[in-house]
């Protein structure tokens, strides 16, 4: 563990010249701005990646004419959405209609605040990190419910009611899977969770608890797909049934906020998956000397982004392969299958931990 020095020339210069109370905030403000910029750029990149990967899955090319390999396509999309006419339908509940798009984005940004990108590349490291994440990710659900009800449209009402039922129920099994890792690693803080997975690849939580870790990872994948309204479980904006789902009445900036929130949320869930189960920013060590040395040479956040990218690819793979579930299958999948299995999994992991059978 190399001790990183906490002071930094730019940071020291700012702290020196600012009055005392502001200086304390400087560090936080700087990191929040960097995080926001990073995440928006990553979201724009994800929009492009989604369209290219979806095209390759369907044996076609995807955007190619807008900039090299179509890289400027998401920028053109967001700029156009920015400049659209801002329609406020007459029968709309103004407060609910305009407040709703803000919530999902803030929800996913708050989750990213505690994401450990690298050893100390982290905005904040609260001791009860996992509890904070479970609380904050409820904000997205709120936004969809308010938006659906506020736009006074039967399709969006149906979409938001479905979203409400789906997101609340899948929150349970997602939290249970995270709880398993927290219990096994003994700490709530995400940074310690990652550090608890140090050592070889077998020390990652996905492999450490024999069977329980891998099952928790699979359950996490399923429930986070439902949290994101993506893939086979995208019932709240079911394209072919509800025409537009909860964001039917949104145009221009309102719609692009929902659109962006979906991708920021995807990055956040994939990041959480990597942090809890795949050893966050730790390089994979296989016990072979020279290979480990080379792998450790690559800095931590590269590993973090690689693992997150792999998970994001899994989400896209699910979305472009599977048909959509029906609402009652979706809920019975959660209540009758995921919840009992994740509880039993928690119990199994608890016995393993107490009896000390964690793999060496």
């Amino acid at each position, binding site marked *: 563990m190399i001790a990183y020095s906490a002071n930094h020339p730019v940071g020291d210069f700012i702290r020196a010249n600012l009055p005392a109370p502001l200086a304390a905030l400087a560090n936080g403000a700087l990191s929040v701005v960097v995080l926001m910029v990073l995440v928006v750029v990553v979201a724009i990149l994800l929009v492009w990646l989604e369209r290219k990967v979806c095209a390759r899955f369907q044996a076609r090319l995807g955007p190619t004419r807008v900039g090299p390999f179509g890289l400027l396509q998401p920028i053109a999309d967001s*700029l*156009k959405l920015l400049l659209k006419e801002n329609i406020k339908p007459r029968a709309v509940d103004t407060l609910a209609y305009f407040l709703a798009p803000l919530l999902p984005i803030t929800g996913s940004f708050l989750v990213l605040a505690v994401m450990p990108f690298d050893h100390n590349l982290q905005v904040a490291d609260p001791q009860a990190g996992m509890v904070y994440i479970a609380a904050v990710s409820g904000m997205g659900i709120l936004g969809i419910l308010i938006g659906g009800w506020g736009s006074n449209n039967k399709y969006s009402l149906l979409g938001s009611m479905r979203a409400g039922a789906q997101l609340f129920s899948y929150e349970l099994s997602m939290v249970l899977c995270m709880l398993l890792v927290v219990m096994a690693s003994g700490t709530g803080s995400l940074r310690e969770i990652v550090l608890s997975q140090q050592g070889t690849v077998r020390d990652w939580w996905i492999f450490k608890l024999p069977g329980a870790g891998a099952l928790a990872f699979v359950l996490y994948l399923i429930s986070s797909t439902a949290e994101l309204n993506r893939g086979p479980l995208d019932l709240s904006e079911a394209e072919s049934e509800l025409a537009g789902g909860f964001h*039917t009445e949104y145009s221009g900036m309102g*719609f692009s906020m929902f659109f962006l929130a979906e991708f920021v949320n995807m990055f956040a869930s994939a990041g959480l998956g990597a942090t809890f189960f795949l050893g966050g920013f730790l390089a994979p060590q296989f016990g072979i000397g020279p290979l480990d040395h080379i792998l450790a040479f690559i800095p931590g956040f590269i590993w973090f982004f690689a693992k997150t990218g792999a998970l994001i690819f899994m989400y896209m793979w699910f979305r472009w392969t599977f048909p959509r579930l029906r609402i009652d299958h979706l809920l019975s999948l959660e209540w009758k299958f995921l919840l009992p299995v994740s509880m039993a999994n928690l119990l199994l992991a608890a016995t393993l931990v107490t009896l000390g059978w964690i793999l060496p």
Partner: protein
Amino acid sequence: MGLTQDNSLPIPPAGSLNPAGSLNAVDWVVGWARANSLWPLVFGTSCCAIEMMATGASHHDWARFGLEVARASPRQADLIILAGTIVEKMGSRLVTLYEQMPGPKYVIAMGACTISGGPFYYDSYSVIKGADRIVPIDVYIPGCPPRPEALLYGIMQLQALIRKGAWRKSLTHQPLNTSPIRDVYSDCSKAWEIKEKAKQESMKEAQERFKAENPDFKGVVIKRVAAPKFDEVARVPKPARGMPPAEIFSALQARFPAVAVHGNADVTQEKWAALGPEYVLDLAVSREDYHGVVEFLRNEPALKLDFLIEITAVDWKDHFDVIVHLQSLDHGHKVFLRCNLPHETHPEIPTLMDLFASANWHERETYDFFGIIFVGHPDLRRLFLDDDFPGHPLRKDFEDPTRVVKRPY
């Protein structure tokens, strides 16, 4: 910059951003963004929609142009590709959709039907003759249906238009085509005759001079290209399946003496043979035992005509013929019935809904087109046309100059 009354963006006068009216950097970037991110509305009424789907599919892939996200809700779409015929009843819905779309919005008229009514220009009482009568159109793509490459070329033309700043035009309410529906074919030849008459006067003496100078002038004879010759092929009649018509008729004759074979009243043995193996029994039935005959044909185990192919009517100017086609799925034979009705405004005939559930829509369609009332039908309303459609269109005496252009030849 207050919003205009229908809260759309304020309309900047042309060239307001820069007096020269040419594009400056901001215009260029805005035009580039709007041109490259056209999200089409999921809107397809008939055959052109299949070619639009083929353009969206992997072979032609309009996602390369940034059109991948086809939105189902008009709020998020900024381009309507009118793929398919626009009919009067659909016209009002199309205008609502167009008004629900925000900000700079564009319309592509794809296919002959949306440009001018295409094949349905003449003799159709319900087709809108050209979609630019109800919605301002930016690009017309001819063809029926146009190839995917033609649609892509049309989209590229629209993108070029947007890059040149046409998005400013689409914020204003452009004028629609309000010219009356006229017979383009005859007007074109009439106009030519007038021009031709004047031209012939001016050429008259030149023609006499030419005839005087070389009386025996033989013009160029263009040879007729011989069409390929095929020789006659005898038709192999397919034997009708199931019970021969003679037996069906005799079984019916016992129960309903008044029923006669259409066309030849007294039918003898050799008459049946003369009608040929493919002849399907065609009965003429009076209104009284119309329901009884159909019920008998359906419930009789030997006949078992349990499948109603269709109910329709023919207007013979002095009387109506209600036509019923029945078929037996097990035995395979068919029976055609026709019932003669007087030529009133609303002739009446009993319904067949208690025998066949499919009679429900067939009878409503016949009422919609001919005005024939089916007594006992629980919900006899128009099926295809709006309730305020004047008259019943398939009657021979139906005239509606505001909607129909008669084809002159």
